[in-house]
């Protein structure tokens, strides 16, 4: 009798575990479906594969991590990003981020994007000097990492799949105070402070060129070069 009841308990436990894993899987599949559905709106500018569109000044999203995407989407939703009157593209993104009406939707779409396959970043700048960029990158390395991989603890993004034109535009925005001006946005304030060590646009281009070399072993696509 005791053996029988032991078998019954075991059977029940196994069934419950199987049911739990099945329902977990279903929830995950539902989140993925929801993320994919929500991404349809984003894909108009960012492309169906999340590779960005230069014509619309929309950056590549594939290759960014879900935690960074959530963080930035929340900043747009909470008016911490895209609220400066000269930040033309930021002001385009801010209302679009607000179409995500719940934190759950933000997480679902970020998880979907994080699962997209990245492509090598587009290189459009000529006359860059990655060697100079290497020296300048020393101020970035502590946060963005030696392999440009980012750091979740510091909330710094991986930059390896971001096109050079987008990176330059963002660096210029940080420098001009168009991005990171919100006093409650500590990470962006740090970024603005660090940029004091980057003297001009050419220096920014050199840093970006070095990042692409490091991230892709010098194999960055040469699209956009005449």
């Amino acid at each position, binding site marked *: 009798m005791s053996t029988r009841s032991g078998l019954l308990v075991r059977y029940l436990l196994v069934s419950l575990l199987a049911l739990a894993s099945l329902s977990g899987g279903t929830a995950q599949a539902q989140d993925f479906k929801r993320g994919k559905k929500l991404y349809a709106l984003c894909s108009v500018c960012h492309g169906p594969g999340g590779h960005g569109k230069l014509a619309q000044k929309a950056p590549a999203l594939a290759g960014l991590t879900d935690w960074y995407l959530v963080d930035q989407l929340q900043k747009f939703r909470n008016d911490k990003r895209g609220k*400066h*009157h000269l930040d*033309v593209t930021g*002001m385009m993104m801010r209302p*679009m981020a607000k179409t995500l009406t719940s934190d759950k939707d933000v997480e679902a779409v970020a998880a979907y994007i994080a699962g997209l396959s990245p492509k090598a970043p587009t290189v459009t700048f000529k006359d860059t000097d990655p060697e100079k960029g290497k020296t300048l990158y020393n101020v970035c390395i502590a946060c963005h990492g030696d392999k440009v991989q980012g750091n979740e603890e510091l909330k710094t993004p991986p930059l390896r799949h971001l096109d050079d034109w987008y990176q330059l535009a963002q660096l210029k925005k940080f420098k*001009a*105070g168009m991005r990171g001006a919100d006093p409650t946005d500590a990470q962006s304030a740090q970024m603005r402070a660090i940029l*004091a060590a980057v003297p001009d646009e050419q220096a920014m281009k050199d840093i970006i060129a070095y990042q692409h070399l490091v991230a892709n072993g010098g194999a960055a696509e040469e699209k956009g070069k005449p």
Partner: protein
Amino acid sequence: MLESIFDLARASSYADRIDWLFTLITVVVGFWLIMAEGVLFYFLFRFRRRKGVKAQYISGEEKGQKKWINIPHALVILCDVVLIVGAISVWVHIKQNLPESDVKIRVIGQQWAWIFVHPGPDGKLDTEDDISTVDELHVEEGKVYHFDLESRDVVHSFSVPVFRLKQDVVPGRVITGWFEPTKTGEFDIQCAEICGIGHGVMAARLHVESSEDHKKWMAHHTREDSASLATAVTATAPSTE
């Protein structure tokens, strides 16, 4: 009618004129709609199919038949004249007339945000103390405002329902208009011209403030701008070491 039926407040000096015109058009057109439908259904019933009665072809040339066309026609033309006179008088007051301004602001539309440039404490635009905001317009009750409308990209339409104001914003042009806020509160601003995928979320807020509150807002923003400028200068200054 708009205020009572749709609970849409009037917050500008000319909102009542627009409402009056709206009511006039609704009453005149509504009267003729009911009359025309009434006559149509009366005739349908009066001349319904009956046993032993053959259908007739009516050319409408006899005097007794013609009056059914001519009298309503003349009355409709008379009503048109009333509507046109009413519409033109409102149009001239709002669009052709430009009263002396107390304050001038700039409104810039872009996909999908409104940028408002307010004059700072010096009361003049294009000076250092200008206050630029995104999706937030702050105005003072009882002051006449002139606005210059500009677009950074495509055609938008600057729509402030409580002011009963709607004006297209055309790239390459600067369109000037005016309003005088008459009621304090927080109201909607929207884009009323399809301008891309984010058109539906191109919304902003209008804050109509009393003189005291407006001064407080201005003082707060002037301080905030100075502080943010100081931070920006500190953060972007090249290292001297």
